[in-house]
């Protein structure tokens, strides 16, 4: 593993960054550098890195602030203008395109802005929320690196009782194989607010890059958040996406991720059920191919009574791909009547593929319902024969099974348009 010291501040535009940061942010950044340098490298001896292929965790000489070349800019312009939702598009951590909220949403006090802008215009809000959460499922060193480097990203704030009608789009791109990106997503929903966020991580170059993003999601009492992440980095990208979601009383959140691409992708997802009646649905569908590795760690943290969490992570593995799922349901002594579910299912399509599944429970309350399950299996030979007998060749039959297996996760989403868009996208990438 190579994560050189201070590589980011030595980047071409490193000197420009501190100038625009408020003092409180700069302090956080400096402290993060110290943490980053102090914290040990991930190690296989650490249970939280069990099964991870650490040889794939590498910065590979990537740096922040790589300029976006003209052809990539044109591609991204095309991608951006095909949408209509309020959105922010970043490439190599530079904000390239933005489309603001509707006047109605702005009048109601909704804020959707790049972090740097929000840090000056909504200083109090940001200062009290930004970098306040720790995901802490193993990648603390990377989380510190993120804090030390992150300037790109967005803040979404929805005031109490406001329902944001349209989803907001956030996309983060890497255009060069030596680019590094540190996106930060901050969502603050006040009491009974409602929002939907569509997040995309993708590349315009087909080779490499390094990404380390963090999501801090604050869901207030009775508020509701739907967050959909579509991750499709280029081959060769090493990426981390560390998400923490805080749920207050009667808050609810559905997070969904569709994972494709990349060389090594680690996701850490922590749901903190802090208020009675809070509810978190955590969904993931992963298509692993080639030599890709998806390393997913989750934590369902039941702190308050009468809370509910429901996790479903499914992966389809082709070729010599690997997946790791390590999930933990943690129930505090006070979290009586917790209802927690955790399910990890893996469909193996090749003898060289490897799925590692480590479901876990730690229950300190006595009146709870917690179940977990994991399966690693191949296509049923009788089902395969059935398809073949209809004249469907092996590869096409496998595509059908993968599609059926993964769209089962999409079926858990409420938005029909999203469901069919995701299905189409998955179909296209399987073709």
């Amino acid at each position, binding site marked *: 593993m190579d994560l050189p010291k201070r590589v980011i501040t030595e980047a071409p535009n490193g000197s420009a960054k501190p100038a625009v940061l408020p003092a409180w942010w700069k302090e956080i950044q400096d402290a993060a550098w110290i943490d980053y340098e102090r914290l040990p490298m991930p190690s296989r001896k650490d249970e939280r890195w069990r099964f991870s292929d650490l040889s794939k965790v590498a910065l590979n000489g990537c740096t922040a602030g790589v300029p976006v070349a003209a052809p990539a800019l044109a591609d991204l312009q095309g991608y951006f203008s095909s949408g209509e939702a309020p959105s922010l598009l970043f490439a190599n951590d530079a904000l390239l395109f933005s489309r603001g909220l509707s006047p109605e949403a702005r009048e109601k006090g909704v804020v959707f802005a790049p972090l740097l802008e929000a840090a000056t215009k909504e200083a109090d809000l940001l200062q009290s929320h930004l970098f306040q959460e720790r995901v802490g499922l193993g990648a603390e060193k990377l989380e510190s690196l993120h804090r030390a480097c992150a300037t790109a990203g967005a803040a979404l704030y929805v005031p109490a009782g406001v329902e944001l009608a349209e989803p907001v789009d956030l996309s983060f791109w890497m255009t060069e194989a030596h680019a590094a990106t540190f996106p930060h997503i901050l969502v603050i929903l006040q009491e009974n607010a409602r929002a939907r966020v569509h997040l995309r991580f993708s590349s315009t170059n087909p080779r490499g890059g390094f990404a380390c993003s963090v999501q801090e999601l604050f869901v207030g009492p009775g508020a509701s958040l739907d967050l959909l992440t579509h991750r499709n980095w280029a081959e060769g990208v090493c990426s981390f996406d560390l998400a923490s979601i805080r749920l207050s009383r009667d808050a609810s959140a559905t997070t969904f991720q569709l994972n494709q691409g990349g060389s090594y992708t680690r996701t850490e997802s922590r749901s903190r059920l802090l208020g009675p009646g809070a509810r978190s649905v955590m969904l993931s569908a992963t298509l692993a191919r080639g030599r890709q590795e998806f390393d997913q760690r989750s934590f369902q943290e039941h702190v308050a009574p009468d809370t509910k969490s429901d996790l479903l992570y499914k992966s389809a593995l082709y070729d010599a791909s690997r997946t790791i799922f390590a999930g933990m349901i943690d129930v505090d002594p006070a979290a009586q009547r917790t209802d927690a579910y955790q399910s990890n299912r893996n469909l193996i399509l090749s003898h060289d593929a490897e799925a590692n599944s480590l479901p876990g429970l730690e229950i300190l309350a006595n009146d709870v319902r917690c179940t977990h399950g994991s399966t690693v299996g191949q296509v049923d030979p009788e089902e395969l024969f059935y398809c073949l007998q*209809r004249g469907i060749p092996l590869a096409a039959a496998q595509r059908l099974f993968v599609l059926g297996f993964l769209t089962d996760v999409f079926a858990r989403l409420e938005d029909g348009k999203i469901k069919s868009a995701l299905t189409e996208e998955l179909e296209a990438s399987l073709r």
Partner: protein
Amino acid sequence: MSLQICDLHARIVERPILRGISLEIRAGETHAIMGPNGSGKSTLAKVLSGHPDYEVTQGSVSLDGVPLLDREPDERARMGLFLAFQYPCEIPGVSIANFLRAAAQARLPEGESLSVTEFYQKLYHEMDALGMQRQFSSRSLNAGFSGGEKKRAEVLQLAMLRPRYGILDETDSGLDIDALKVVANGVNRLRGPEVGFLIITHYQRLLDYITPDFVHVMVAGRIVQSGGPELALELERRGYGSLEERYGSPNLSPLAETGV
């Protein structure tokens, strides 16, 4: 034009099941194979369609003159062989329409893609003819279907894929009389001078609705008696007992060697 089976022997693991089956199904003909449980009827269907659990130890099969047994199951299907399964698999998450699109696409020359509009026109036409609700096509294939729905889905696939030779393996099992009629009508619609059918059944009941041209009786892996539709009625009256007594031993088989 025919599906020609010559002296076919096959086994599963080390146990011989087919002990010399010879049968020719010409285009336009409908043959029925009847026989007691365990006589090898379903094995014949699986061996013809290329199920990997079975090993052919002797004999040959050709479809319109082309040798079949060295082909993969999907190639055999594209050559025009269709098996309606006794126990159709449930495939969760794959709709009937998408499944059939994949099957139709596989039959096109490489590089050509299916016209979705034409596909759906054809699908709805066939569904209408079978008296099926259109929303049935968006349900996951066989997942949670009743026995009758599964068999109807098989007949819909048969109608969509229009094979040269269709094998129906115990299609009547688990069907009530109404479902049986729907399935039989579906098959009868497809009969014609270009298509051959092999109907495998334990009971004569299905043959009341699909009248075969020939009836064969299978016992202990061999065809021991052949005749016209009247043979089915006779078997219904007499049962398989006396035939099993006579031909049940693998060592005695006058007809298998000569090939009926």
